[in-house]
């Protein structure tokens, strides 16, 4: 996710991070709550496509993001097809696709640092309830930046497993958990070394 940002000067790029994230959260929620009708799904897809083309990074990025979602959409469609039939599967998959595309737009047009600053500001009112906005923002940030590190660790574990002819999911999961916990432990030490207790 940290690699999603595309620099640009589109209207969405110019919107402040906080209102933009909030606005998109409302739109994505609305898309998720639409009735299971083909007209609603077409409308959701049209809104997503129009936002990319007219307010965001354009048609090429829309195609690239949709292509990137193909496996997720296929899995959603297959699952829905088994339990609900063709038309509900198609409409629900279209809605899920539209929701993910719209949510991705926030990351495509907003620097993570701006998003974190907005999150920190947004959480300020919760300070009186004991929430530390800086800590919450740091937590969110470390979650985001740990994703590619865990991805790399998972790849290394898989490669080591394959190199010895292993294919078991259970062994992979166990090894990966140990490696991930070790990383978490060392990340904690690094945070402490730089002034976070």
């Amino acid at each position, binding site marked *: 996710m940290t690699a999603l940002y595309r620099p640009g000067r589109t209207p969405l790029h110019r919107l402040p991070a906080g209102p933009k994230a909030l606005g998109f959260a409302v739109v994505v929620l609305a898309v998720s709550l639409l009735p299971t009708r083909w007209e609603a799904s077409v409308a959701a897809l049209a809104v997503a496509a129009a936002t990319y083309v007219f307010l965001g990074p354009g048609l090429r990025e829309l195609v690239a993001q949709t292509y990137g979602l193909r496996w997720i959409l296929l899995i959603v469609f297959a699952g829905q097809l088994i339990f609900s039939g063709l038309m509900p599967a198609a409409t629900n998959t279209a809605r899920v696709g539209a929701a993910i595309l719209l949510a991705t737009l926030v990351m495509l047009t907003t*620097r993570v640092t701006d998003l974190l600053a907005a999150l920190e500001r947004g959480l300020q009112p919760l300070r009186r309830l004991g929430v530390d906005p800086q800590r919450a923002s740091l937590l969110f940030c470390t979650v985001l930046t740990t994703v590619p590190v865990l991805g790399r660790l998972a790849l290394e574990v898989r490669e080591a497993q394959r190199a010895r002819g292993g294919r078991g999911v259970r062994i992979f999961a166990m090894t990966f958990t140990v490696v991930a916990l070790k990383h978490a432990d060392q990340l904690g030490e690094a945070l*402490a070394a730089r002034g976070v207790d």
Partner: protein
Amino acid sequence: MFAYPDGRQALFGVDFTIGRGERVALLGPNGAGKTTLVLHLNGILGAVAGGTGSGKIQIGGTDLHREHLPEIRRKVGLVFQDPDDQLFMPTVRDDVAFGPANLGLKGAELDARVQEALVQVGMQDHADVAPHHLSYGQRRRVAVATVLAMRPEVLVLDEPSSNLDPASRRELADILSGLDVTLLMITHDLPYALQLCERSLLMDGGRIVADGKTRDLLADPTLMAAHRLELPYGFNPLSVPGPEQ
């Protein structure tokens, strides 16, 4: 003395002093207690942070106690072995800014501090890049910058040359030799120790077993063999120049 919370004793009577501006290598076989020792130097391990132990650590005249931790952590900068453990912000700039921001710096002063640290490691052109998009050697340099930005008096590095290609290893040596700080460096890379540190401490079994000039230690085959240290094939510590004084 120090034992981990599970009872495993890691340090048995470690006593040494490092003078201001000295460059010291910490050598020893795996499991000697080197990393455990350096994690004590800014209170990540030890009596203030779990485990049981006894003794006293003083950094620049300040005793290591819980109430002095922020000051100690500003004075002692730790560069971890794996830069991925150290880099956790979305961009290089944010990562380098993290430590000084925790010290209370902000605005133009913080920006200047970040720029200064990035220039010191030659990474100023990568400030807006996500750390995971950099090469391993570049990530190591950024990890050094994250610590330099706190202007530490003591720079502690855990295996700084590990996993670096020869060019990155040499570039990092150039950076480290140009810094005006006290330096303590854990390493298995004995030529690197000789190149950068005039003095070495040799640890084994949780104890300091030798303390002297790096060249003298490396040139003592009996001492080296007794503590599972080996020089690279054909390397003679008496025939190469040591660190610049």
